């Protein structure tokens, strides 16, 4: 473990792209982990997957207009993601469809448009790049976007924490007490889309979900209190980015999958050994309080 560690420090000193990759992925981890925790608690764990398809047409149009530059890709993805998320939310509130059903309807529509655009006017290489991204290719504008999104996420969480938590825990109560819980829900959807779009340049649209959901699911196996859930998710996400990048540099692996694989490894380990994992549950089943 010690040798790659030193290798990483050498690489950090030597290559600017490694420094940017590290800072960028750490910023991503800071923003994505709490969003993942909230998605998990709202039973919206697959929201990110749907979103990864939903941003495709926007990113593809952005790519056709501006080429492979983050402002165009992210801008297009942001518009498409917000359109799908808000349209699905609106349809769920106003019709008898559930959120997941209306989401499925809209993201499939978006996915079809995206694939159509890419295969008609782009090439498969572009599609591969959109789907898999590269944290090692993060440039200064990308870094700026990623860190801005992380900052916005933290500020929004600080301001709306009480509302978003209560809306997650008991949406009916907040709706009856404030007359309108939509503010928190819409705010949360916007923040989730922002984080997702920031992540997909670095990680690729498919891997971006991993940095959101895996730390959150892992944290749920370790922590009971809500505040500790956030802390645990942050630790897992930051560790995944750090060790994932190290592995990626050391063995010349694609960075996105390397980061997600580390997070996935921590998840599998926790599934068995964490306080709320399989092993502890088995032991708890035998030992219990008398009353």
């Amino acid at each position: 473990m010690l040798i790659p560690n030193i290798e990483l420090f050498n690489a950090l000193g030597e290559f600017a792209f490694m420094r940017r990759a590290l800072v960028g992925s750490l910023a991503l981890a800071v923003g994505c982990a709490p969003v993942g925790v909230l998605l998990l608690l709202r039973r919206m764990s697959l929201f990110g997957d749907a979103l990864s398809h939903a941003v495709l047409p926007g990113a593809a149009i952005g790519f056709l207009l501006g080429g492979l530059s983050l402002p165009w890709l992210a801008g297009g993805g942001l518009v498409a993601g917000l359109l799908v998320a808000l349209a699905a939310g609106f349809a769920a509130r106003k019709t008898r469809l559930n959120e997941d059903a209306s989401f499925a309807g809209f993201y499939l529509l978006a996915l079809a448009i995206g694939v159509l655009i890419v295969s008609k006017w782009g090439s498969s290489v572009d599609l591969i790049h959109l789907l898999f991204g590269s944290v090692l290719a993060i440039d200064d504008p990308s870094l700026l976007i990623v860190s801005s999104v992380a900052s916005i996420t933290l500020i929004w969480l600080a301001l709306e924490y009480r509302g978003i938590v209560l809306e997650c825990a008991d949406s009916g109560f907040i709706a009856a007490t404030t007359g309108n819980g939509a503010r928190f829900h819409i705010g949360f959807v916007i923040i989730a889309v922002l984080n997702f779009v920031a992540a997909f340049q670095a990680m690729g649209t498919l891997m971006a979900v991993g940095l959101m959901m895996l730390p959150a699911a892992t944290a749920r196996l370790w922590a009971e209190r809500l505040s500790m859930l956030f802390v645990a998710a942050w630790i897992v996400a930051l560790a995944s980015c750090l060790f994932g990048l190290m592995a990626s540099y050391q063995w010349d692996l694609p960075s996105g999958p390397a980061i997600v694989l580390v997070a996935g490894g921590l998840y599998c380990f926790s599934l068995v050994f964490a306080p709320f994992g399989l092993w502890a549950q088995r032991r708890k089943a035998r030992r219990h309080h008398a009353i």
Partner: protein
Amino acid sequence: MYRAAIGCVVGVYFLGDAIVIEVEHLTLCYRDRAAVHALTGRFVAGSHTAVVGPNGAGKSTLLAALAGVKQPDEGHIHRHGAIAYLAQLSTLDKQFPLTVRELALAGTWQRRGAWRGLSKADCLRADAALDRVGLSDFIQSPMGNLSGGQLQRARFARLIVEDADVLLLDEPFANVDTETIANLLAVQDDWHRAGKTQITVLHDMSQVRAHYPQTLLLAQSALAWGDTPEVLTPENLQEANRRAQHWRNDATWCQEC
């Protein structure tokens, strides 16, 4: 003279005749059927009303509309004072990682909103409320550990912390054990003595006769509304059941409104 006049006004306000909720020609639809039809009436301050009626009589729909969760399809609702609402089908996620104290503290929302900090007094109030409903041993535990009856007690504690002038409770004693019911009925009696206005949907007529001075017998419109003994007559109850048997899907469209 002057002082007496003020005292009189204040007295009237506190002793009864002030209207807290007034409904005018209220129609509420569930899908394309009128669940509540052309209901007109008022709830005065300090009244302690049970809303009874057969299934499908529009009781829950009426309460949701009074709480402002559902918009009226026809007519108007006038409200005065802060309202707290305990829905029947709880949207509360029982697995959500909140402690029982945090759940009770949610009741401070009307006073504190999204941004103002919680004071020591708020926490003491929440702990006192949990103590009142017999959950003082569970203050620190996650609400996922509570049983159904305990969770209902915790939701009552949240209502105590809310301290609203008007309380709307939709079948608060459904699926709850008798000891919990006794405890929560005592909490309702406390509220009644404190002068709060309560509107409670119930099914158990013996509970209504024993604890609720006023009753609204609802079968789409008000079949009877007033003092409990005069409302819960065998004839009225029979008429309510007779109406319930005649609700059909092929009923004609309302021509009046």
